[in-house]
């Protein structure tokens, strides 16, 4: 295996450098074409908001591509001095490179541990390379394995479970309460920026109606316009609360706008026991916390943050199991790859020794021609074949063992010793 991963991520390079190293579609195509041609290599470019990485594989008998060379190439491509790029690049070789990709695809190297999006990005990067004809046997096998490992890690551990942001935690609670959303009403109170992402998530559920209310009708109209909602006058807040199934409150009011008494007297009775979810994203809070009971659930920013933090802690608990899967799969991949690479070498080695055997045996049999019976001839030929098999048994067994252990050094040594081409 002659594989290198060269790149930078959030740990090795600041965002301004990563931005300047970002690949658009044209640059990706250029990188794939030029690197393949320049280094006679297989190439995949993985570019996400947190990392820029190049996976480069060459045949075993040539020197690998190292990071200084890649820094020069990136410098040409992005118009940046190589000296500015090089210190921020990391390089992983062979087994370490495979392990790195498996960890990346499984979300173990992500800022948000266990995030699912990265698997899709790895898949896209690989497909782009395939379409450009830049992916060859090793990268085909490597990326297919990485996607499989990612699925395995996700299904066999809890690394991807739970939501780790405030907005997605809110959505989790919505799903605990409701099954269908097309008959639900979302009420947005206020026009604060806090909770915009939550509103976007809620609007994505395609509720029957989104009502927006605010002391300023212009601000309400702006929010309603953004989320496809309908403005409700501020004076009709109680009626809107009776109608709503999910409430998102983000006002900048200095004190609670809905007290327990107001809610009990003007809202609760009219609801007929229907469940209500209130996401109070305002600080100070808009809803009296004591409204929270069996039918009405009130979640403030702290509650949602706590849930998100707990989910992250839970994911971390699954990290050792995920790392074990990656470790096992890397060993398996490397052993499989080496075994695949051993096939032609063993074939050539056997052919080479057979050639030598024939070269020694043919003159001997010529010399003894007429003095040997057919059965004696067959016996001598058999003895030579046995000698050959016993001679090769040790190296071939050692080669298989080395493949199993994950290194290809012995294969290269054998190729050199016997002058094989690989």
């Amino acid at each position, binding site marked *: 295996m002659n594989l290198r991963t060269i790149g930078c991520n959030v740990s090795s390079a600041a965002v301004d450098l990563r931005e300047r190293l970002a690949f658009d579609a044209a640059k990706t195509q250029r990188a794939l074409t030029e690197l393949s041609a320049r280094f006679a290599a297989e190439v995949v470019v993985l570019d996400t908001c947190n990392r820029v990485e190049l996976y480069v594989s060459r045949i075993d008998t040539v020197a690998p591509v190292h990071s200084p060379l890649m820094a020069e190439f990136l410098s040409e491509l992005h118009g940046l001095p190589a000296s500015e790029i090089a210190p921020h690049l990391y390089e992983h070789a062979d087994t370490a490179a495979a392990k790195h990709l498996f960890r990346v695809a499984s979300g173990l190297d992500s800022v948000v541990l266990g995030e699912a999006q990265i698997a899709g990005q790895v898949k896209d990067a690989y497909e782009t390379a395939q379409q450009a004809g830049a992916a060859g046997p090793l990268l085909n096998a490597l990326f297919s394995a990485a996607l499989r490992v990612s699925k395995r890690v996700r*299904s*066999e*551990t*809890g690394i991807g*479970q*739970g*939501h780790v942001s405030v907005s997605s*935690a809110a959505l*989790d*609670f919505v*799903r*605990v*309460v*409701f*099954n*269908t959303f097309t008959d639900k009403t979302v009420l947005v109170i206020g026009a604060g920026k806090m909770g915009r992402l939550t509103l976007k998530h809620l609007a994505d559920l395609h509720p029957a109606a989104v009502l927006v209310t605010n002391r300023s009708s212009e601000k309400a109209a702006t929010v309603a316009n953004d989320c496809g909602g309908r403005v409700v006058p501020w004076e009709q807040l109680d009626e809107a609360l009776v109608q709503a199934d999910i409430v998102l409150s983000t006002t900048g009011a200095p004190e609670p706008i809905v007290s327990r008494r107001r809610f009990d007297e003007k809202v609760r009775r009219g609801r*007929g*026991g229907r*469940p209500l979810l209130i996401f109070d994203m305002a600080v100070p809070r808009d809803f009296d916390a004591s409204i*929270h*009971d*069996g*039918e009405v*659930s009130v*979640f403030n920013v702290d*509650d949602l943050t*706590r*849930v998100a933090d*707990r*989910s992250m802690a*839970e994911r971390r608990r699954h990290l050792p199991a995920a790392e074990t899967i990656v470790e096992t799969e890397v060993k398996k991949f490397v052993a499989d790859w080496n075994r695949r690479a051993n096939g032609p070498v063993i074939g050539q080695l056997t052919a080479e020794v057979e050639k030598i055997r024939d070269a020694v045996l043919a003159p001997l049999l010529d010399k003894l021609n007429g003095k040997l019976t057919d059965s004696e001839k067959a016996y001598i030929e058999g003895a030579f074949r046995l000698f050959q098999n016993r001679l090769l048994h040790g190296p071939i067994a050692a080669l298989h063992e080395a493949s199993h252990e994950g290194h290809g050094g012995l294969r290269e040594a054998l190729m050199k010793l016997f002058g094989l081409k690989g």
Partner: protein
Amino acid sequence: MTGTLIQGIHHYCIGLSYLCAFLLELARLLWPAKGWRIAGLVFGVAGLFAHTAYLLVNQPPPSAPYGSLLLLAWVLALFYLYGTVHHAKQAWAIFVLPVVIVLVAMSRVLLFATPGQNDFSFARWLAGDRFWGAVHGVLILLASVGVSVGFLASVMYLIQARRLRNKVAPDSVVPMLSLERLETMNRRALNVAFPLLTAGLLVGTLLLKHGYDIDNWLSLKVLSTAGLWLVFLVLLYLRYGVHVPARRLAALSVVAFGLLLVALVASHPFATGGAQ
């Protein structure tokens, strides 16, 4: 050979298969891996196969306590299998299988406790022997399925509602259906069960009137079934009449299931003869 094997199946095989399926499902939740689920399903299917074979070979009477419990357990085992396949991500089996296992175990205990009621045969039933008694038994049994499904939905609802009240992260514990879905399931189960229970009770009342003395009217079975019907009536009134919150309805559904168990376990006046 196969026939002998099938005849050799009894409650232990059924109960242990379901128990293994339950333990494997538990393991899947604690240590997520695809293998657990597949192995659990294999045991679940094996249990259901043994259960079905037992019912076909032994034909337990629906009017005998052990028979009605075993038949109810069989329908709930089907419900378990449907849920496990259909709601693969939910902890369905964790709730359904314990009920199935308990019903199978109770059936086993009652099989020996009421030996006189076990000489029922479907052939005799089809020929008209104790026909109305069996119709009554089947109607009550079908209603029992509804009550049991309502019970399971209610238990899940109460746990889910408690988690929501305590603001527990949804994915950090046993995954369950949404409250809305569970409430719908409970409502539908009770809506189906009530007419069946009413019809079953009517048939039972007519049978009692024509073939039994006053002692039968005051038997535990009759009283608990009547109590169950009354609880149902209250449930329907609370739901559709005064719109009581779903949490309270769920709690009452659990009570209804308790009454159902008493009614099923209690000795049946039609099981040992009488009304034809």
